């Protein structure tokens, strides 16, 4: 390793030691431990201190340019930062659709004014974003969306309904797919609008899920007036941005439970819960299922590593986000099914801390639906990677 990178590591280690509150060095145990930021964020003292310290350095988004509130770090420096945070057991200071989804799209398609306005607020966790994509009639066939935006002077007037809008009731702004050209072919009539959820005419209504939680909302737009300057990219070219953003979303969902690193494997949990009979797990049939799962999970983790290393070496691998999304989410569902079996009747509990497992299991079933179903991602691999003919 180079001397400068070594110096950066020493400096980073000292800064993290001095600035990461002790409470932020423990594993995330419950939903409220995850910091989403935003105007209405209810943060504990240590969460606020950690977010502000990291946000000020731009280390919530280490590789974004410093001019837009990022850390301006190289890939190697960002790796050092990540490894030093792992060493400390430091929590992520900020979870954010702004970081994972909108940010990369803004950097590629946003105007300079839009980048300067929105990116620093994302980096500091000041504005929480939600994603206005799916509609009641536009799920897997997203491009058939009907929410309309009609230009009236220097404003768009937005009418329509979104669904499965994650945390719309808690978000400050929305990035939203709207139809601006109703007569154009469906992929060519879509535009990408950014607007404030506090605008008159925006209402949200949470949807209760099988897990009992309500992370998703229905979102209604009734004559919402949006400045035309909030259009991102060109009018009618929103589908390109939508697809680009989806690749980031898919990588995020696919990788979610594998990048965490410190989490216990199914076999570790099973060994604790069920116990060993001699050298092997006390339940031989479950053991076989677990080892099959862990072989796949391990090989998948290595594949994510290889994809990153190849990208770094300039060897592109096409449409990989679909592969990571498809395989990663199927594995996570399998993991949750196994954990349910490992826990036996204990994992059927619904209330209190003991209810976490059954709710996680139910939540995981959405993994292969949200952000493009497994079937849609298989379609994409078949068409873009394998170049199989269309039906």
């Amino acid at each position, binding site marked *: 390793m180079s001397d400068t990178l070594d110096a950066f590591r020493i400096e980073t280690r000292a800064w993290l030691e001095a600035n990461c509150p002790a409470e932020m060095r423990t594993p995330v145990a419950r939903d409220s431990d995850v910091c989403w930021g935003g105007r209405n964020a209810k943060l504990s003292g240590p969460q606020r201190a950690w977010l502000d310290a990291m946000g000020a350095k731009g280390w919530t988004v280490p590789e974004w340019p410093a001019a837009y509130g990022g850390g301006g770090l190289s890939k190697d420096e960002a790796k050092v930062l990540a490894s030093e945070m792992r060493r400390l057991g430091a929590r992520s200071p900020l979870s954010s659709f702004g970081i994972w989804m909108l940010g990369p799209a803004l950097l590629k398609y946003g105007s300079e004014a839009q980048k300067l306005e929105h990116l620093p607020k994302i980096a500091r966790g000041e504005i929480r974003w939600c994603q206005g994509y799916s509609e009641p009639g536009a799920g897997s066939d997203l491009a058939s969306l009907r929410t309309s935006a009609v230009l009236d002077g220097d404003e768009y007037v937005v009418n329509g309904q979104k669904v499965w809008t994650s945390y719309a009731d808690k978000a400050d702004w929305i990035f939203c797919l709207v139809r601006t050209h109703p007569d154009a072919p469906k992929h060519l009539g879509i535009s990408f609008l950014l607007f404030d959820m506090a605008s008159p005419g925006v209402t949200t209504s949470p949807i209760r899920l099988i897990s009992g939680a309500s992370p998703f909302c229905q979102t209604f737009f009734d004559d919402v007036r949006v400045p035309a300057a909030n259009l991102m990219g060109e009018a009618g070219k929103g589908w390109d941005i939508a697809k680009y953003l989806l690749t980031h979303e898919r990588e995020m969902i696919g990788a979610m439970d594998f990048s965490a690193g410190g989490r216990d494997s199914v*076999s570790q949990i099973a060994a604790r819960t069920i116990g060993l009979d001699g050298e092997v797990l006390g339940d031989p049939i479950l053991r076989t299922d677990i080892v099959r799962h862990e*072989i796949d999970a391990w*090989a*998948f983790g290595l594949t994510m590593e290889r994809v990153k290393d190849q990208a770094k070496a300039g*060897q592109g691998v096409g449409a990989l986000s679909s*592969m990571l999304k498809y395989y990663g989410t199927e594995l996570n569902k399998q993991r949750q099914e196994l954990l349910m079996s490992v826990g036996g009747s204990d994992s059927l509990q619904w209330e209190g801390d003991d209810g976490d497992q059954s709710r996680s299991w139910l939540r995981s079933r959405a993994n292969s639906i949200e952000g493009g179903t497994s079937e849609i991602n298989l379609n994409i691999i078949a068409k873009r990677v394998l170049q*199989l*003919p*269309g039906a």
Partner: protein
Amino acid sequence: MALVLTEEQAMIRDAADGFFRDAAPPAAFRKLRDAKDATGFDRDLWRQMAEQGFAGVLVPEAHGGAGLGFVAAGLIQEAVGRNLTLSPLLSTAILAASALVAGGTEEQRAQYLPQIASGERLFALAADEQARHAPHAIATTAEASGNGFKLNGCKTFVLDGHVADTLIVAARTDDGITLFLVDAKAPGVATERTIMVDQRNAAEVTLTDVQVDGADVLGGVGGGAALLDRILDAGRACLAAELLGVSQQSFDTTIDYLKQREQFGQKIGSFQALQHRAAHLFCEVELARSATLRALQALDAGEDRAPMFVSLAKAKAGDVAKLASNEGVQMHGGIGMTDDYDIGFYMKRARAAGETFGDAGFHGDRLARLMGY
């Protein structure tokens, strides 16, 4: 270490791909099979492979080899898998070279390693005694006799056993398992070739009062179990690479076919029922590739966790090769069942190579034990 090939390794891959595609494609395999060739491979091809440095891929330069390491050996094996090439590469260049590098005395290395690199001496590993791989379940005995040992027992599934000049025999001594270098023509060695489903050479070897010298012990008396595991792991990782080649070729051939074959007035590749299976298979082959590369890198780096990565790779690559070749036959439909088409050869090889030195069940169990469950 980054999970990508170095420039040197990428050159080796290209060289190996080109060589086997030209010199030993599936058509050559078919020809040898149809001729019921007594040797079971083409000795002239093996000579060329030695000239290319493939036979000496694991032999240190000081002993006349190329000393390229396991990632390189895996790349060669992957090309072998794609082309169904028949050769003593696994038994001699990988298993025997690993055995001598890891366990040989200075004299043994100086004598045998140059002969491996030049391709002039062939080896075979005589370890298995049961139909299901259980490498430490050894009943063959080695009793002290004169200034050496007397060997008695039966070995099965000895790859290239009937053409080998030297056998590496695992036998039980008072203090554990011991490996021996045994002249295949020594009195008391009886070798019977068996023809397998994939046309690879294997033999039953019977040892009756075979006298070996103390100098023919490989890796110390009683020290054979750990050495045998190392040799087997070298073979398993390279077999994973071969299985990866089998998977990739089955997959590529099948995708081509889906783009050509028409039914109901359209290419069958336009049917979603086949597209989704093909896309899933694509993901599986990528996973096998990652696991295999990691195992080969772990062997090159001498990592403590290498056995775990090897079992991961062998289990995953074995399962994926079965899936890829089975799906290949199914998607080819009726012609996939014909001897005229190559896809059936890949299914046979996937089954045999998957079984060799432990299938996914064996390696899943080993992996779980290594991980403490």
